[in-house]
């Protein structure tokens, strides 16, 4: 693959303003009939009476970007999407903040919704990204993704 891989990673949380700007940027693409958006938010789980205050995300970035490019190409083709945008946070994200933004657009709603869902599931299962859940007292544990 010679073309430069699209970077999905952003440092820190994904702001609601950024999400709004991305939606607004699609108003000129008038063949789109439906968007689907998934937003992942850091959950303040309580484990052994300790509450998660933040998650620190790291990745093997070159591999993650290569895999994401392949997933993107396959899903755009499968669902005839107009476009797909994916953003994942790296670094420390506080509970309540957005750490994942998946945005799919298609002429019709079902394709947009199914593509968004499949992209979220595949990126959680296949991309080398790790979340370290940090508790209020400074201790931590490694996050485990739940099955669907």
């Amino acid at each position: 693959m010679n073309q430069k891989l699209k970077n999905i990673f952003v440092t820190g949380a994904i702001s609601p303003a950024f999400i709004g700007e991305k939606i607004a940027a699609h108003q000129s693409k008038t063949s789109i009939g439906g968007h689907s958006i998934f937003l992942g938010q850091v959950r303040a789980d309580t484990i052994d009476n300790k509450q998660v205050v933040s998650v620190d995300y790291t990745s093997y970035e070159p591999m993650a970007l290569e895999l994401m490019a392949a997933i993107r190409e396959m899903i755009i083709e499968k669902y005839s999407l107009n476009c797909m945008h994916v953003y994942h946070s790296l670094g420390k994200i506080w509970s309540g903040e957005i750490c994942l933004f998946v945005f799919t657009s298609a002429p019709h709603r079902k394709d947009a919704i199914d593509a968004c869902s499949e992209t979220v599931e595949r990126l959680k299962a296949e991309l080398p990204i790790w979340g370290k859940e940090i508790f209020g007292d400074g201790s931590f544990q490694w996050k485990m993704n739940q099955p669907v």
Partner: protein
Amino acid sequence: MAVKIQLFGQLKQITGVPELTTDAGDTDGLVKEMAARFPVLENLNYLIAVDRTIVQANTLIRAGQELALLPPYSGG
């Protein structure tokens, strides 16, 4: 022939370093070497990526390859 290995997530935390070098000739040898150097890894599942591709079967390690040890993913 020392080949560099990148470590991520829990593996980076347990070993205390972001990368190591190995003289192992293949990936099975690498797993044995890692278990000997870090006994705690015997209880931890991880995948091996060679040149950014997961390898399941035993694979020869050659100079210049990009090796990485990947604990279970938890993105999103």
